[in-house]
């Protein structure tokens, strides 16, 4: 692994929470290096700290110790506005519960990151159409999330994550609310997109078979610690 290909580097990252007198260490001195174009699965049981680690790498949370470097910038040292800019320009996110805004149409949901990035109105329309076509939802653009199936909602969420052309996609249990067939379809789509766009994907999951099938590297977490990290194929 050369420095030139390293996209993200977590160095002894810890995250502690205080609950009254008790201190809970959700992530404990995890070090992880992610290369550009990798599809990594963070595998672990519930409470293993995988989602917390993902949140910190996505710039939603800050480590209480250690550093997360993306393109040589330490996220822990960025101000709130710079961190928001990182999320807006570099990161795309997909969640377990889709997190589409229910009162907006699919098209408006996908357009939201572009509004935040102050993209020109005309460009927005083109890019939203392009993203929806890519996930096969071009015909459902005017539908509200409640009018879509779970798989369609997750594909819509994927279109929203891709519309800003991010360098890295974080997926937090993207198949957790889907049946196994639909879950596999989503991960297939994710794999296709990664292959065509060459983006880096970090996916949190507790389903080892899916991780083994789709990710090219699996990092196993347990009790906040990284217990194994291996390339699959």
């Amino acid at each position, binding site marked *: 692994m050369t420095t030139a290909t390293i996209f993200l580097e977590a160095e002894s990252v810890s995250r502690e929470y205080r609950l009254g007198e008790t201190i809970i260490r959700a992530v404990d001195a995890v070090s992880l290096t992610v290369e550009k174009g990798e599809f990594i699965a963070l595998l672990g049981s519930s409470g293993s700290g995988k989602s917390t680690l993902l949140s910190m790498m996505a710039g939603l949370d800050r480590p209480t110790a250690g550093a997360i470097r993306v393109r040589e910038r330490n996220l822990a040292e960025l101000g709130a506005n710079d961190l928001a*800019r990182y999320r807006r320009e570099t990161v795309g996110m997909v969640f377990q519960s889709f997190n589409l805004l229910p009162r907006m149409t699919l098209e408006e949901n996908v357009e*939201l990151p572009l*509004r935040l990035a102050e993209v020109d109105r005309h460009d927005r329309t083109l890019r939203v159409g392009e993203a929806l076509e890519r996930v096969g939802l071009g015909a459902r653009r005017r539908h509200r999330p409640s009018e879509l199936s779970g798989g369609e909602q997750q594909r819509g969420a994927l279109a929203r994550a891709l519309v800003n052309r991010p360098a890295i996609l974080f997926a937090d249990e993207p198949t957790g609310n889907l049946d196994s067939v639909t879950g596999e379809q989503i991960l297939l789509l994710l794999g296709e997109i990664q292959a065509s766009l060459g983006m880096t994907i970090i996916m949190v999951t507790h389903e080892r078979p899916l991780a083994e099938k789709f990710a090219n590297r699996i990092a196993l977490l347990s009790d906040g610690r990284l217990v194994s990290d291996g390339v699959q194929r």
Partner: protein
Amino acid sequence: MKTRDLSELAVRNLREAVLRNSLTTLGVAVGVASLVAMLSLGVGLQALASQRLTRSGLFDAVFVTSQRNFRGPGRPPSAESKPKQNSRILDEDVRQQLSKLSNVTEVYPQIRFVTDVRYAGKTESTAVLGLPDSSRSSGAFDGITGAFFSSPSAEEAILQIDFAKVLAEQPASLVGKELILRYAERAALSKNADDEDLLDSMMGSGKPGGISIVPREKKLRVVGVIESDPSAGIGGFGGARVYLPLKTAEQLHVAQPDDLQAFLSGNSAKPAYMALTVRVRSPKDVLQVETAIKELGFATFSLLDATKGLRLVFTVFDLFLGLFGSLALTVASLGIINTLVMAILERRREIGILKALGATNLDVGSLFFAEAGVMGLFGGLFGVALGWLIGRALSWGTTIYLHSQNLPGVKITYVPWWLAFGAIVFATAVSLGAGLYPAARAARLNPVEALRYE
């Protein structure tokens, strides 16, 4: 985020919880309405008072007398007001001179005399006053029984109701009837050969001819009866009971007290006036015209100071009405805070999603701030409309009551453009102020905790 996108999202969010946001906006509207209604009452009453006083001719008039005879009512002559021996007499030349001063619209003499009036065999002594045609719009004749003079030189009279009651049991029955005015006419005598020696021995040689006083009678048709006294309070000149058109009164050439003085000063050929009323373009011109007249050597009197006092009273009145009106708006702003704080709780997850997608704290705060502003703006717009309607209802109710009391209706509320505009701006500003805390709270939300919220 761009302002347009921010506004679109804010309006969209407000539409989603339409009932709650409408009720909050209605709260702001009621607050603004109470503010507008109260201030419109203050402004309306002030406008009504100013209009009445302006129409009365008290505040756009300067009363001019010769320095020989001007003295405030009931005041002994002071060193300053001591009659000046060389001061000028108010005659037709002076009237013409004053009418040429800038910002002067009209100059007319004070023609007032005490005389006998005969009607249906009764003879009553009373004061008669000549009224200029501009009195028609003074407001004093609004409730007249009958009509104002048909022309500026009509041989007609208007009676004050107290005097009309002396002449007839039913004052209204006098309208259309004729009465006879008995008065003393003043006529100039020119020197003739027969009287020349006698006059010269009396007056001294070189003095003009004398004056004669001749009793006359004039038939006048009564055209109206009024309750008020249109001349009362003007520099102590009021109290007349019979009114004639000014030109008619002038043509009578009634002997005036100053005629004797004019005669002695050798100006007996020209009529002398007790006082002249100088009407100016607007009350703000009074001071300048008054100064110019004083420089010509005449005594003046105006009610300028009284206007200032009136303004002060109404300013304090408006201030208190505004404070009471603002209380309702303050309560409404608490409603906005409540609505937005509730919205933050309900939309925690949405805030988390926005932040995950790259919204800054400023974006999130601005969104809530904009929602408060939109509620304030719409509340302000509805409030002004509602306040205007309340004002109309107040005026309407007052007019109905006044009509039941046989009085003319009045408009007691008035919403000027600055009040409407100011109320909308104020409502928006108060709402934005109320939105500060919820907006700051929303902006501070931790995205991870917000996303976890179900």
